[in-house]
């Protein structure tokens, strides 16, 4: 590590008494986190931003408004602030913000924390404070401000060898105006940004002290578990709670109203068992006898639904992007290729099932939750309790994984409703079964693609139809196909130089809640697109890597106003000027990953390499999977290489870890995971039948190649996932000649060798 050790930082905080508070938090739960300001010294702190507070004792408190779920954002934002401030890393104290619009957008999804503004906002705040401290020191010494420099927690006047620590300058600095346009550091001066820094939560995680939503507690707290309706839209018809109430420790059984379809962020309803312990609540739930009302989704069946999607995608849909004349070009093709791809629903299945603690009193509601979205939690709780949102305080714990699930605060609302009813603090604990069966599944997609090759093996036409239920259907009625925002995730923004191109969105009604899942519709879209490119390459008799390079065409910025999109194409909420679609960046990650992976090397029978490249969340990623298929049809993965160009990498060590995790999650998506419905109910219930990758199936080698090109930062958490499944499917084809068009691979390879 290039920075002072975390132990030094903890020792500084201990001497200030702050570490004592941290230990107190361990003993009593998270309730006392907000007691922090009392530890500041007598004078008011310097607070040039809602994200920064510097005390007269020298303590530098960085207020992180984004949720931590393993991506390292709490550490990264402290690095950015400390760097521009020229803070002493050992004096940094991290505070997690409550949900409050004063922090701007807090919804920690879309791989947006760094790229969408926090990076520059934190730099500006740190630089403004540094400048105020420098001016204060200059005034103190009566020297020109240009002759002093902040360095590692103090301002120094080199000419006279004088130095004042930040804490001694706070009283004067807080009387100064906050500069609107402070001078930012040159990148060559960075001490933390772009360097490897140990995570601020690491020690607590390693010693079991880290507090997640499931760990939150308060004096007098009750535990609730909820039997949710098994079918989306059903509600409680009758409850026999007698047996549940006989379970020792069970105190009450409460029926919760079902939110009508589309239910958005509000709860599903059901029957809650409230008890003095989690075990009692779980036992009580098992003893409930509940009948449910009929739902319009009672007949939903994934096998029948797939047939509906197939029929839908085999007929014309709503045209969303159109260039040239795809029909004529397909009709005159020397070689026409048609292929169809199916990717099932997926469950987020974060290791920590959702949980929330709420305390409703006459004053309002205070809650603690593993939420990605504390402002939405606050808004939804206020709406459900019918109180002003100013009376709702939502604290954010650490998140034990999230992947999009914990952006939806239904479980926080459940805790608030039950606390109001019980007149005590209530923690709602979701079990794994709740998480798998009552979540917000990732969409299911059936895609129909047709491609035309001319006599030289050049792609002259491409038709892409997708039938996939929209996230919008969870929030608004009559949403019967993908939104343009979802189509922009890989389809409307596909960069390839194809003269005749058409993308169509076909009907697909939702029959469950549908939610965003790490990489969202990029997952099925990239699977279809990068698999189909591989199919075309083989049809043309070309090497897949060379074929992709040819399809990308010459290096260029694709003018997104001239791609035939019916409506302006969204760019992950950013603009196309600062984050253009740049085919050179696709090319570079593709060339890098294939070089590193030894593309073209000879492999034994039954082994193969597959490649895919995809841009999402403003970041370019290419993956090569080396797959081996055994005689029993099992997949073994000796090696995966992943190259990522995320622009400027603020915290490279965590960029690497996110890329590694994306490979593992992408392989789970591709090999083992499937959520399906029968009679309107989710078939799977826990990790035994909703399977995710275990260590034994993980790649033997996993190599991350950062190709950070230095431009504005792109997203990091999600873009590694989409190219993994097609790279695997293409590797399986290279190994066996069997084309995987339906995910997960599961047992499809039995007998393939």
């Amino acid at each position, binding site marked *: 590590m290039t920075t002072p050790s975390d132990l030094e930082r903890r020792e500084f905080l201990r001497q200030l008494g702050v570490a004592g508070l941290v230990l107190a938090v361990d003993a009593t739960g998270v309730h006392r986190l907000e007691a922090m300001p009392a530890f500041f010294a007598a004078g008011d702190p310097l607070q040039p931003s809602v994200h920064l507070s510097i005390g007269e004792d020298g303590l530098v408190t960085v207020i992180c408004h984004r949720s931590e779920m393993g991506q390292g954002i709490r550490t990264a934002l402290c690095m950015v602030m400390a760097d521009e401030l020229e803070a002493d890393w050992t004096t940094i104290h991290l505070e997690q913000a409550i949900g409050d619009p004063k922090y701007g957008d807090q919804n920690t999804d879309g791989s947006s924390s760094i790229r969408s503004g926090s990076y520059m906002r934190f730099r500006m705040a740190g630089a403004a404070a540094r400048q105020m401290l420098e001016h204060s020191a200059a005034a103190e010494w009566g020297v020109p401000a240009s002759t002093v420099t902040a360095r590692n927690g103090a301002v120094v006047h080199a000419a006279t060898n004088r130095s004042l620590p930040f804490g001694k300058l706070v009283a004067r600095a807080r009387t100064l105006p906050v500069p609107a346009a402070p001078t930012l550091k040159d990148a060559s001066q960075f001490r933390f940004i772009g360097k490897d820094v140990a995570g601020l939560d690491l020690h607590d995680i390693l010693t079991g002290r880290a507090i*997640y939503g499931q760990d939150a507690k308060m004096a007098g707290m009750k535990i609730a578990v909820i039997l949710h309706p098994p079918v989306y839209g059903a509600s409680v018809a009758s409850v026999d709670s007698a047996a549940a109430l006989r379970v*020792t420790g069970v105190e009450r059984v409460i029926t919760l109203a079902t939110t009508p379809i589309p239910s958005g962020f509000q709860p599903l309803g059901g029957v809650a068992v409230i008890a003095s312990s989690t075990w009692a609540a779980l036992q009580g739930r098992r003893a409930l006898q509940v009948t449910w009302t009929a739902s319009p989704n009672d007949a939903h069946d994934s096998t029948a639904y797939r047939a509906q999607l197939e029929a839908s995608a085999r007929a014309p849909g709503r045209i969303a992007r159109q260039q040239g004349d795809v029909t004529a070009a397909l009709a005159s093709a020397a070689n026409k290729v048609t292929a169809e791809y199916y990717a099932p629903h997926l469950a987020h299945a974060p290791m920590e099932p959702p949980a929330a603690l709420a305390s409703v009193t006459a004053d309002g509601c205070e809650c603690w939750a593993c939420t990605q979205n504390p402002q939405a939690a606050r808004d939804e709780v206020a709406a459900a309790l019918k109180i002003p949102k100013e009376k709702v305080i939502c604290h954010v714990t650490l998140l*034990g994984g999230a992947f999009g699930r914990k952006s939806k605060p239904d479980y926080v609302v459940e805790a608030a409703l039950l606390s109001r009813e019980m007149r005590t603090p209530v923690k709602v604990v979701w079990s794994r079964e709740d998480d798998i069966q009552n979540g917000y599944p990732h969409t299911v997609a059936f895609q129909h693609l047709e491609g035309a090759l001319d006599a030289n093996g050049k792609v002259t036409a491409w038709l892409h139809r997708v039938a996939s239920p929209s996230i919008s259907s969870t929030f608004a009625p009559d949403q019967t196909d993908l939104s343009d925002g979802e189509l922009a995730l890989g389809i409307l923004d596909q960069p390839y130089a194809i003269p005749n191109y058409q993308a169509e969105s076909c009907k697909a009604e939702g029959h469950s809640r549908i939610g965003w899942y790490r990489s969202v519709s990029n997952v099925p879209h990239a699977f279809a697109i990068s698999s189909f490119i591989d199919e075309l390459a083989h049809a043309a008799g070309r090497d897949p890597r060379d074929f992709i390079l040819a399809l990308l065409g010459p290096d260029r910025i694709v003018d997104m106003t001239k791609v035939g999109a019916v409506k302006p194409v969204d760019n992950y909420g950013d603009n196309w000027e600062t984050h253009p679609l740049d085919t050179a960046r696709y090319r570079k990650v593709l060339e890098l990953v294939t070089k590193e992976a030894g593309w073209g090397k000879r492999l034994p029978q039954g082994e193969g390499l597959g490649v895919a490249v995809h841009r999402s969340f403003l970041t370019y990623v290419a993956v090569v999977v080396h797959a081996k298929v055994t005689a029993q049809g099992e997949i073994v993965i000796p090696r995966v290489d992943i190259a990522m160009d995320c622009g400027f990498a603020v915290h490279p060590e965590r960029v690497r870890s996110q890329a590694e*995790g994306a490979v593992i999650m992408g392989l789970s998506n591709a090999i083992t995971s499937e959520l399906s419905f029968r009679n309107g109910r989710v078939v799977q219930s826990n990790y035994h039948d909703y399977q995710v990758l275990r*260590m034994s199936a993980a790649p*033997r080698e996993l190599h991350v190649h950062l190709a950070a090109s230095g431009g504005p930062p792109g997203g990091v958490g999600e873009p590694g996932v989409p190219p993994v499944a097609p790279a695997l499917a293409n590797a399986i084809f290279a190994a066996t000649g069997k084309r995987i068009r339906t995910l997960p691979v599961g047992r499809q390879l039995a007998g393939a060798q």
Partner: protein
Amino acid sequence: MRLTVNGTPRTYDGDPAQPLLWYLRDELGLTGTKFGCGISACGACTVHVDGTAMQSCVTPMMALADKKVTTIEGLSANGDHPVQQAWAEANVPQCGYCQSGQMMAAAALLQRTPRPTAADIDSAMSAVLCRCGTYTRIRAAILAASAGGR
């Protein structure tokens, strides 16, 4: 009944069927041991019982009379067990939720097999899921913490 948790003698007279997981979390406040599945499918709740890795979510209290239970909070006094040190050096955790179970499983493995092979590691550790995907770093950290790695 009596048992020992992280070196402290305890008596228990509650529901004998209650899993150790909920006794640790709800009654002793030892929340480092995590709830992930409740059916011994994920290993987030892994603790040591008389030195052996056990999944506390399916271990009833009645099975623990006179046993010594060690949780992540008791693995070392200062977070300096070789496994914890290796985990820090390799920056293994992402969200961290499964890592107590991972480290307890790894510590038990190294106790019984000080020089594990790659196959030994995969065999012992495949009981503990990580949804963030830290498996390759866990493998490296276990090798670093093993007798061969130090």
